[in-house]
């Protein structure tokens, strides 16, 4: 097992990248702690699979280095990196039994037969497939096949990290939850570094200790699920995480006050005078129906069970407010009040740090 460092890494699928758009992965430096459970979250095509394939060595980066601990592995082929990877579509060797599947990576590495048998038995217990060891792999369900893929990785003790590339895409919904729980407990028990690629925020937030959010080939934020929710570093994170996402309003900011379409909003803390496009962001649960505050035009109410979403507009921009189910919605209101402590200020999409904390 190892700490994984990406140093000034970037990748382009074009031979001679020039403009920013040519880079599938823009230059980044990132460290993955040994034994961490990470999620790599982003919408389709944002470069997360590219990043994963570079770590596993299936792709060679255009520039930069990949380090396992202090060893440079950039030039090493996949086989020499001791990485396990689970793919979107379950990969099993059809003609083999489950046992042969699990033994395959060890056989290829020429381990003694007794050692192989012992490890296969161990890993079968871990993934809960001891009873199915002598069954043919091709007849199994998608979730069982995915467990075998995982098992083929875990059977190698020396494995540095286990990478998951949207592993639950083809799994039935009720099995998804079960597999994810099993993954978490495997992580707790054996402490492999796990990197889990997904575009599903629920999957990412429930699986990971730390989430890496990517957008358009760039890492926009690394943090715990809580910090992504409370203090998104980029409007993309604010919008992508949370359901519904963060509300964003064009604003003018002077010191500790924001002005949105002529309304004054207190901001809790003071900011240096910003340059560029200024927006304020507020989570739907940090706003509430009120008689004074921002003018709000209600369009419709959605009941999603444990809360209701009021969908409407503020100054021509979409604006959502959530109300817990035990709280009544006023019969008529035309304004929303915002919790000053939970307003974020964004300049050209990036979060602006308030003055005293910046100092």
């Amino acid at each position, binding site marked *: 097992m190892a700490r994984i460092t990406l140093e000034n890494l970037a990748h382009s699928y074009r031979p001679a990248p020039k403009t920013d758009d040519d880079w599938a992965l823009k230059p980044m430096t990132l460290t993955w702690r040994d034994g961490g459970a990470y999620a790599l979250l982003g919408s389709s095509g944002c470069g997360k699979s590219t990043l994963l*394939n570079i770590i*596993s060595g*299936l792709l060679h980066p255009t520039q930069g280095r990949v380090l396992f601990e202090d060893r440079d592995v950039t030039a090493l*082929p*996949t*086989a020499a990196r001791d*990485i*396990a*990877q689970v*793919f*979107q*579509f379950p*990969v099993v*060797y*059809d*003609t*083999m039994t489950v046992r042969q599947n699990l033994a*395959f*990576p060890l056989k*290829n*590495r020429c381990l003694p037969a007794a050692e192989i048998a012992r490890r296969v038995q161990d890993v079968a217990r871990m993934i809960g497939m001891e009873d199915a060891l002598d*069954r*043919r792999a091709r*007849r199994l369900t998608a979730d069982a096949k995915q467990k075998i*893929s995982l098992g*083929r*990785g875990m059977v190698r003790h020396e494995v540095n990290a286990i990478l998951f590339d949207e592993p639950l895409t083809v799994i039935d919904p009720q099995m998804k939850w079960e597999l994810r729980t099993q993954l978490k407990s495997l992580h707790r028990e054996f402490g492999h570094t796990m990197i889990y690629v997904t575009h599903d925020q629920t999957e990412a937030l429930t699986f990971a200790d730390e989430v890496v959010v990517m957008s358009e080939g760039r890492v926009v934020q690394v943090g715990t699920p809580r910090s992504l929710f409370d203090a998104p570093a980029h409007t993309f994170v604010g919008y992508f995480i949370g359901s519904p996402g963060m509300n964003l309003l064009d604003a003018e900011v002077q010191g500790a006050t924001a002005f949105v379409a002529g309304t004054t909003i207190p901001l809790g803390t003071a900011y240096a005078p910003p340059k560029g496009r200024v927006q304020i962001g507020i989570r739907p649960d940090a706003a509430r129906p009120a008689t004074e505050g921002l003018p709000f035009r209600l369009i419709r109410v959605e009941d999603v069970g444990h809360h209701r979403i009021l969908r409407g507009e503020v100054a021509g921009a979409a604006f959502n407010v959530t109300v817990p189910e035990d709280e009544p919605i006023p019969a008529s209101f035309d304004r929303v009040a915002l919790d000053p402590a939970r307003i974020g200020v964004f300049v050209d999409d990036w979060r602006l740090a308030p003055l005293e904390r910046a100092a």
Partner: protein
Amino acid sequence: MDKPVNNRAWLLVLPVLVLVAFSAVIPLMTVVNYSVQDTFGRNQFFWNGLGWFEDVLHSDRVHAALGRQLLFSGIILAIEIPLGIFIALNMPKRGFWASLVLVLMALPLLIPWNVVGTIWQVFGRVDIGLLGHTLAALGVDYNYVNDPLDAWATIIVMDVWHWTSLVALLCYAGLQSIPDAYYQAARIDQASRWGVFRFIELPKMRGVLLIAVLLRFMDSFMIYTEPFVVTGGGPGNATTFLSIDLVKMAIGQFDLGPAAAFSLIYFLVILLISWVFYTAMTAERERP
């Protein structure tokens, strides 16, 4: 649930039955009819029971033709299947070259049988053929008209040239349907090139290989036109395969009774061997 039973529904399959009757059943029945009768001319027939079948089954001539036929199909399969797989594995996967190679590979398949025969008949001639003349100039004693071995070699090379593309294209289609993740997983599992072939590519090609083996078996077992054009079954009877022998018997000697019995036995042999291939190649799949 109660299913309504209405026997008049059988009328719905009547058109197909009529078509199949005219296209297959009735012609086959005329053959059956000939196979159990004998005649001394003047369109007078009398019952001969299974006499012709016994004759054919005990005929040394038919045995020899069957032996040659089995040997020919065996050699054809042994060359074309591995060669087709090998070519498919080495064809470019995408891009301009993939399209070009596909077109080039398909070309031999578009040429009619008798034209293929004619091409090779001329190609192999010692006096004017490019192949025959070149071999002669190099001092190789090659003459497919006189030498049985050369005749066999010519016909086999011709068939390989004509039909290996079919096997290669089928295998290529099978290979193209394998997702990249399989190859990536194999790299992570440190599988050797042979391992990738043995445990990923070959199992995924099984379906198309079954089709390829069956098609190539049936086609080669029924081969007529090309050897007829190139060697005419000679030298002697060296390349007289079953269908050539059958045509000699039916049209050359006009022995319709034995020829009819021969046809039916020929048909049953093809059916039997195809069934054996099919069962053998799908048996693995049925195992739990």
